[in-house]
């Protein structure tokens, strides 16, 4: 899709500037499956005009929250609404909310016919169907049965279906899972453009770096509870440095005197220390004064995933990551 359509978005049917897009409001939402508390008294809002990344490890309750939000599952308690309206009460659901949850299609139906089925309820015509097939780069495959589509193509068909009604909200569950790198780049640009028109994007992921480049806000949940909601810009994304030294204990003590956090790590080249500072002059001088030989001193890009897991585990060591 990146090749054919580039970054151009489908022209909105109604100028978005004239619409008022309300925030998504998750209010004290709980969903239990038997004794399992998939979502537990969860509250947050998703602002219009922004891309919000919805993060958490697998099993954190992201998908359940999204499914309750769009009326596929009933909440045990609490509400999930678009402005004040639950999904079920939306007058024109497809013109209001586009959802890319799972990409499931009748295997014998062509991609184009799948969109025609959805176009009937969205109240749009065949030209809109063809326009979207073009946008997601499926025009050539439009008349082939969905069973012949690759995972990435199915994902793009699902996206086309979500966009048929020209919605104000776009909800995506792990969109990067099935997309190739090119498709992911295209999607990022598309979502940025979508949000810049004042519309709302909520996309879930279990990997921070997938949404890090796109999201304005992030909402992190774990075990069905809110861990953190923050603007991406407010995340403390300062870089780190890595040193390999002759005496790691002495180096650690010396660096602890600086106003930084120091962690030990080991990779294929052996043990190292990671310092939450990129001031290599101070680090180098400190180690020199501590009589430690420095074999390597490197500035590292910030570690998004590490930040993510810190949020989840409360400054735990990264070695004790919860397996996803």
């Amino acid at each position, binding site marked *: 899709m990146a090749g054919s359509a580039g970054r151009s978005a489908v022209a909105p049917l109604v100028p978005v500037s004239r619409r008022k897009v309300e925030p998504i409001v998750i209010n004290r939402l709980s969903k239990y499956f038997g004794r399992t508390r998939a979502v537990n008294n969860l509250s947050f809002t998703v602002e219009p005009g922004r891309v919000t990344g919805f993060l958490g490890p697998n099993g954190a309750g992201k998908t359940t929250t999204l*499914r309750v939000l*769009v*009326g*596929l*599952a*009933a909440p045990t308690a609490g509400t999930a609404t678009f402005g004040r309206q639950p*999904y*079920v009460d*939306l007058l024109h*659901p*497809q013109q209001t*909310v586009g*959802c890319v*949850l*799972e990409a*499931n*299609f*009748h*295997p*014998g*139906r*062509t991609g184009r*016919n*799948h969109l*025609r*089925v*959805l176009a*009937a*309820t*969205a*109240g749009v015509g065949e030209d809109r169907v063809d326009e979207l097939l073009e946008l997601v780069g499926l025009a050539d495959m439009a008349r082939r049965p969905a069973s012949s589509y690759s995972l990435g193509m199915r994902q793009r068909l699902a996206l086309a*279906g979500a966009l048929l009604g020209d919605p104000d909200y776009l909800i995506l569950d792990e969109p990067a899972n099935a997309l190739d790198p090119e498709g992911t780049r295209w999607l990022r640009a598309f979502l940025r453009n979508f949000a810049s028109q004042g519309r709302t994007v909520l996309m879930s992921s279990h990997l921070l770096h997938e949404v890090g480049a796109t999201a304005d806000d992030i909402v992190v949940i774990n075990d069905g509870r809110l861990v953190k909601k923050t603007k991406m810009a407010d995340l403390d994304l300062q870089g780190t440095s890595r040193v390999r030294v002759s005496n790691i204990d002495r180096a650690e003590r010396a660096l602890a005197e600086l106003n930084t956090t120091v962690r030990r790590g080991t990779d294929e080249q052996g043990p190292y220390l990671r310092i939450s500072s990129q001031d290599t002059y101070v680090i180098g001088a400190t180690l020199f004064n501590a009589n430690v030989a420095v074999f390597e001193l490197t500035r590292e890009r910030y570690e998004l995933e590490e930040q993510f897991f810190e949020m989840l585990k409360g400054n735990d060591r990264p070695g004790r990551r919860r397996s996803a």
Partner: protein
Amino acid sequence: MSGVLRSEVRKISTTRLWWIMLLCVFLLGGGYALVPAFSANLAQSTVGDPTPAFEAPGTLRSIYNGGNTLARILALVIGILAMGGEYRYKTMATTYLATPKRIRVIFAKAASLIGFGLLYGMASVLAGLLVAIPFVLIKNGSLFLGRADTWRSLILGVASIALWTLIGMGLGILVRSMVLAMLVGIGFAYVVEPSLAALFFFKEWDLGLNLMPTGATNAMLGVTNPFLFAARDPFTWWQGMLVLAAWCLLPAVAGVLFTVRRDVT
């Protein structure tokens, strides 16, 4: 036509199954209609009945609706697939996202199935009509198309097929596994019901026969053939139609109450 109905019609019309079924109903239904046609022909040649078979309106009616026994099974299957396919291919979520008021989906499915059911019913009756014509010509009989009861039988034959699609749909709603719903539906139609019908027939329990879907359909069509375990004292056509309608509603209502509201997984 409302959007959700158009959407449901497109769901059926955009897969191959519907016209394969239509072809089956027409060709196999025609084959089924040959059975009463030949047996009437045989009876007329050997017994030397005082009123020749092809001059009896009842004989012609049984040929016209000869394909009904097959067409109703295929109608049942179409109905099961309309709902069961959504569970099977996990497209239910997409459907409910487009139409979150789920009962509207059910009504639209029912309406589209009635439409396709009428089409299958017409194919079945048309096949019966085409089978009857050569026999009538050869034996110098009549098609009895001037008679009201012939037309009633034709129209009710078409309507009964539409009702059978709804029985299938109800089953498809209630049983959320398509394969299981098919097994239950076809098993009931081919094993359970004929066994019960045979039992009721030999016990001469007409009410039991009349209350079965097949018995109700026989009553609707005015079929009196004892080989089909038809009741000796059948319901009138409209009573039969009511019983059949109840068979449509029973699983559908249970399904709407117990399974449609549940979370979509």
